[in-house]
């Protein structure tokens, strides 16, 4: 167990290191930030001067080693556009990202578990079909247009909820629903499929043969097993949610990390991009480590 954790932590560090390295070289390929900083009539000398100041004239491996050395001390450099440390710019955005990601995650997975269980318990075929149909229809709807639709109905039409920005809990409702309902569809289908598999398991038959009732069998025997695949997918997906909610963040002008990174890419703000990528990859590997450990608690067959 200790061996496993040590191994996984080392792997995680290596992963983050690799991601940051790839990001470092990729952004360097994307173009010269000095051109964006200067006005169009800047002379060749101005460009050379600013490149020199930014250290862009040195060989790339020197730049890389210097970057790694600084990064190891927690220094990711200053933002090119705003004169403040890149990492603190990213960290500023983290609470917003966490708020949106965790709320939509909870909405998605919570509703999926409730609806999935209802589908398994109910004997009404139409109810089962209706739940699945709605979930499928939602999944078929792109996040972007669904978000606009929500704004159109609840902000513009009914005027119940704010459409932009972050602040009160009302601000959170629309983006969280937009993102969460997409998650819901994913989890519901997975959960329903794994419950259907459970239904045919021998130990479910054993439980009925003991004289257990349907609800007892569902809650005591089927659910614990049906949750296992959900945990795996949820781990990967939560990581994606944290960094990849860009579309939702853009539609609702949500000040999250994803949106910051996208903005920084278009402004070639290298330090911010790399600081953001570093932080997201770190969160991603930590979540996956937790999922693996959680799995060994939930499934006694998995031992490290």
């Amino acid at each position, binding site marked *: 167990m200790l061996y496993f954790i040590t191994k996984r932590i080392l792997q995680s560090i290596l992963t983050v290191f690799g991601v940051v390295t790839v990001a470092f070289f990729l952004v360097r390929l994307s173009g010269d930030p000095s051109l964006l900083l200067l006005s169009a009539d800047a002379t060749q000398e101005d460009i050379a001067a600013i490149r020199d100041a930014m250290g862009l004239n040195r060989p790339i491996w020197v730049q890389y080693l210097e970057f790694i050395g600084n990064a190891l001390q927690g220094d990711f450099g200053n933002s090119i556009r705003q004169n403040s440390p890149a990492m603190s710019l990213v960290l500023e955005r983290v609470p917003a990202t966490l708020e949106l990601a965790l709320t939509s995650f909870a909405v998605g997975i919570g509703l999926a578990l409730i609806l999935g269980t209802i589908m398994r318990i109910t004997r009404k075929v139409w109810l089962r079909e209706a739940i699945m149909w709605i979930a499928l229809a939602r999944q078929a709807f792109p996040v972007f247009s669904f978000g606009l639709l929500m704004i159109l109905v609840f902000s513009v039409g009914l005027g119940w909820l704010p459409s932009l920005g972050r602040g009160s809990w009302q601000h959170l409702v629309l983006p969280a629903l937009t993102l969460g309902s997409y998650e819901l569809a994913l989890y519901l289908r997975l959960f329903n499929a794994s419950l259907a598999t459970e239904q045919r398991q021998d130990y479910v*038959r*054993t439980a009925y043969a003991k*004289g257990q009732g349907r609800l007892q069998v569902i809650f005591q025997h089927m659910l614990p097993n049906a949750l296992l695949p959900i945990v795996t997918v949820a781990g990967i997906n939560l990581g994606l949610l944290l960094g990849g909610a860009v579309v939702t963040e853009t539609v609702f002008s949500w000040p999250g990390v994803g949106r910051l990174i996208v903005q920084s890419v278009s402004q070639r703000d290298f330090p911010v991009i790399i600081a953001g990528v570093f932080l997201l990859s770190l969160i991603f590997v930590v979540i996956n480590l937790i999922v693996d450990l959680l799995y060994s608690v939930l499934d006694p067959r998995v031992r490290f």
Partner: protein
Amino acid sequence: MNKPAASDQKVLLSVRNLTIQVPVGNGTCNLVDDVSFDIMESEVFALVGESGSGKSLTMMAVLGLLPLPLRMTQGTIVLRGQELTELDFNGMRQVRGKKMAIVFQDPMTALNPVIRVGKQVDEAIRLHNPGLSAKQIRARGIELFRQVGIPNPEQRYDQFPNEFSGGMRQRVVIAIAMANEPDLLIADEPTTALDVTIQAQVMDVLREVRERTGAAMILISHDLGLVAEHADRIGVLYSGSLVETGTTEQVFGAPQHPYTAGLIASLPRVDQKVDRLYSIPGFVPAPDKRPKGCAFSTRCEMSRDRDACTHARPTLRSMPEGRHSACHYAEETESWAKAQAAARVVLDEVDDSALRQAAEPILSVQDLQKEFDVSRGFLGRRAKMKALRGISFDILKGRTLGLVGESGCGKSTLARVLLRLMEASGGQVMLNGKPLLTMQGSALRSARRNLQVVFQDPYSSLDPRMTVHDIIAEPMRIHDCYDAARVNELLAHVGLGPEALLRRPGQFSGGQRQRIAIARALALQPDVLILDEAVSALDVSIQAQVINLLRDLQAEFGLTYVFISHDLSVVRHISDDVAVMYLGRIIEYGSVREVFENPEHPYTQALLSAIPRHHVPEAERGERILLAGDLPNPLSPPSGCAFRSRCRHAVASCAQSEPELIERTRPHHQSACLRAEELSNPAKLAS
């Protein structure tokens, strides 16, 4: 319809006219058709039949647990005067687990993997004893564990199912079933998934718990030998109908239905070697394609297409001595069966040791080793698991070596190493005089043509998306020798018609699929065929067909077989030589007759004593040697002789060094037991 065999006994369960339907297209089809039987208090009633006979469905109907879309459309089920078919789901809950309980076939899946075993036992107790406190329930559960022979019940009660071996899990399942001392215990193939020696332990536990509580038992099984040893009465099911009932002695002594007679004749025997096994022709018809008249008529060699058989559906009718048979000509069965038995050609086994020394072996294995690296424990200490240790044997061309042993003994690893699907850790293998283990590239490719394999499960060893033609042609295409005529020829050799070529595996029964797998293995005209449990997954009547086919092919093409099996009767029938393996080592090796008639190693003796001998009267069966415990952990085998932890003859010197596999008492008969000389001679042992 059924009258109790002995009228002084009381009827516990009475099933009448049970019919189970499944919707097929627009109509329905009877999977179980008008089945009636009685079970007396405290008796063991066996329901015997091949897969698809409806034996398990009958029991699920009794439990009220038929899965949708199956429906019980007719019949009554009365347990101690209570009509079960009138009860709703909640009413049945009071019966299930309390008045009757079931032990399922596969102990690996019958327990919930994420719940501690004790909790699963607790559930069964709590459901029917709502007044008990948690402490009382646990005490009762631990008591149950003790009764089914689980060592250290207090500790093991809080473990998860994956920490138990197969045999131990089945004991847990039995503990759950016995939690409320039911009147009726249903055992659905309770030992089919277990090894021979563990089988004997589990049947013993079942007998003990039944004797303690006086419960009756329905034993559902395809294994006639098991049934012969454990049942009081037998009901034989064929294609959804009951074709014969009677006491065990009656049914095995003089079957009254040609199907029963055929099944019994299909079983290989350990005490003699016959030229061909009797095999029932054809296969069980699909339930919606049953022939008109008697469902067995198309496979019946006694019927000879008489009008009554092809037109009138026989019903179960009373016969003398309280027996029943569903055959129009039941009275003829006995003489027909006798004629069949008389037609068996019992082979005279000659001593061929001279031949053995003279000829050059086609496959020669010397000191073969295989180790696996496994990490375990704190900080992943490396450990080596020795899966094969010093395996040596020779096989002459055209002969068969039987490899027997329980799961985990290394017999399948040996097959993989011989096929070079796995690299050996040491030793040498000579195939046709060339070293097989060091071959690489094209040399290995062409050597592989000479060594082919047939696996156990014909359902997963054939690609479901390929046609039969492509499956058989694939090896030829790989070796650039494709020939369409050859594919047809191969198919004919294994007894299938050319119409099979364009169909896919899904359209064939298990026995037919195994024939296709054999045809594929023969495609490259190999010298040696490795048969890894190749007939183990087949029904009795089909198994006999495939065994006969294998022997015919061997005679025709001079094939050499390595026949891996846990079924000793089959090995006795098909092999010339036999090697018994235990924990990665051969512990006894010799001609099959030598080893079976004069076993020297106590493990071999135990295995042989566990073979059901349905053809021998109970009194003459001799002592059943019950091995204690499970196979030891191969990572830390006992010092000295690996078998000593389960051996009843172990002495102090057994712990010191591992006995070599050498000739100890008789020529050409090797064994690895220090006390072989005493043990092979009971008189000496007694003194």
